[in-house]
């Protein structure tokens, strides 16, 4: 496919700052089991911890040998500046994540990070609605901790298919203004999809942050569209997924379709999830095209 003369992805939405990424040999502090096949992997990585911002990710080398070959990207879930700890919230579903879930305290692994563009933090106090679908809760303990440090009013909508797939409440930072729990099967909280009832919450918000399956985020963007016109819409930032190889823009594997600025119906350029994302403004993505592609490495 030949590209027409159109703005580059970096010109359109910006790109990550690779000068901050460092390679560090991290030491596993422990792996906590948090639900059915869900784990929080805690590692000591003081250099990366000191640089990690909410929504950014690290590339974890699961094995020094050739299987699995590629690193695995995970968003920073929690971050503790006193101890130099960062954590990753993951489901043990593939070769890499299963191995990570079996790490033992003292095990070492290479980490490259921080990578990608994270969430933007507010400059003035206001209300943030934070929406998590299942594993999409991963980046939010860190994000909400930072928001609360800035005296932001934080509403957290924690959704999953069922109770065993919910991010555990006891690990959430203290001080949330409101916690809404939804499960699709009604096994905890209100029965329904995480996007149910979001319109009213969004209307009162200054910012909406969301992470979850790409289909959920697409539905959320449609609801967000209903918050206008006529009123100032909340800023909407979503953290998305794409099959990722390197994490720093050279393998070109994690292509994501971008939209041209509002009003231009032409197909926008492909960006990279690792450089333009994983966090983007919800309007920057071409959702119908994004939904056609897988979200994980095959």
């Amino acid at each position: 496919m030949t590209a027409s003369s159109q703005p580059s992805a970096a010109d359109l939405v910006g790109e990550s700052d690779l000068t901050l990424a460092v390679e560090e040999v991290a030491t596993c502090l422990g792996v906590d089991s948090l639900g059915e096949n869900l784990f929080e992997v805690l590692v000591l990585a003081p250099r990366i911890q000191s640089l990690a911002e909410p929504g950014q990710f690290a590339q974890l080398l699961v094995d020094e040998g050739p299987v699995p070959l590629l690193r695995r990207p995970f968003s920073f879930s929690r971050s503790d500046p006193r101890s130099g700890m960062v954590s990753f919230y993951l489901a043990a579903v593939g070769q890499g994540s299963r191995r990570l879930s079996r790490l033992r305290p003292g095990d070492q692994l290479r980490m490259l990070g921080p990578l990608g563009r994270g969430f933007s933090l507010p400059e003035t106090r206001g209300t943030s609605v934070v929406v998590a679908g299942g594993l999409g809760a991963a980046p939010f303990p860190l994000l909400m901790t930072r928001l609360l440090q800035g005296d932001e009013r934080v509403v957290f909508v924690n959704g999953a298919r069922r109770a065993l797939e919910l991010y555990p409440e006891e690990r959430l930072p203290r001080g949330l203004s409101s916690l809404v729990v939804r499960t699709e099967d009604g096994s905890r909280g209100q029965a329904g999809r995480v996007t149910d009832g979001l319109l009213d919450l969004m209307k009162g918000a200054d910012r909406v942050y969301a992470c979850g399956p790409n289909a959920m985020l697409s539905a959320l963007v449609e609801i967000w569209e209903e918050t206008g016109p006529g009123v100032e819409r909340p800023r909407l930032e979503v953290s998305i997924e794409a099959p990722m190889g390197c994490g720093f823009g050279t393998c070109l594997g994690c292509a994501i379709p971008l939209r041209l600025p509002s009003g231009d119906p032409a197909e926008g350029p492909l960006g990279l999830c690792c450089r333009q994302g994983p966090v983007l403004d919800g309007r920057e993505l071409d959702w119908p095209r994004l939904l056609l592609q897988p979200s994980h490495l095959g």
Partner: protein
Amino acid sequence: MADRDVTLECQVDLGRGLVLPNPIGVASGTFGYGFEAERMGTISGLGAIYTKGTTLLPRSGNHPPRIAETTAGMLNSIGLQNPGVAVVAGEYAKRWASWPVPVIVNVAGSDIPDYVAVCQRLTGIEGVAGLELNISCPNISHGLDFGTDPAQAGRLVEAVRGATDLPLLVKLTPNVTDITSVGRAVEAAGADGVTAVNTYVGMKIAVPQRAPVLPGLGTAGLSGPAIKPLALAAVAALRRALGIPIVGIGGIGSAEDALEFLVAGADAVQVGTANFYRPGIAAEVLEGCLQFAQANALSSWRDLRWRP
């Protein structure tokens, strides 16, 4: 003996004035145009940078998914995403001109005039140390694959040779019955060296979907440690057949791997897929090779060569 006073000639002369400071380069398609590594601080010490495949016009590449992981390897079907030669020659080369590492531009095209135009545009540009013709990208189909037909490959190289005085490497595809026949053809047509090998055609299947993981025909280029023995065999065969330098590539991720290629007959090597999971590894590969050279009192990398 290791204690003899022997100085290693670390440089590698690939001909036509292309002298690499050391034999460990980074492969096309695994290092962009070097700017990510520049920001991450991992270009110092490289023997050469072989850029992403560059075409006459910009290409946005294939629709995702583009990559998949396999046992000790990965499949890619990027589709030659690149900004086009005007940007490369007009903007990127200026930045390379101040780098301590030679930058060799990998060139791709769909017909002879395409290749010739790209190579001409890059000729006489400061910062461009040489060209590597990609006659074997498996991920764009034009019904014509120069790399699998010795006569076609020879005609292409002859045309490019007549259009540029830059050092000219030709990157060969292993997806042929006899790689040496293509190697001989490009040598006769004036190539200064060959790079061997490009990716192997491969496929990954998703049984639940009863279909390949990657779109289109489902085929893609296989790289990584999985192909190293295959690539070594190709390099050894080419060494027996050719007189020109060989740049070996295929699954190199350690000094041991690189030394194996030098023994098999390569004059220089490229670290490829390992750049994705071990950014900066080329410097470690070089360090390991230098230690080996010192411990074994090598005076030149050619001392390693297998001479059956």
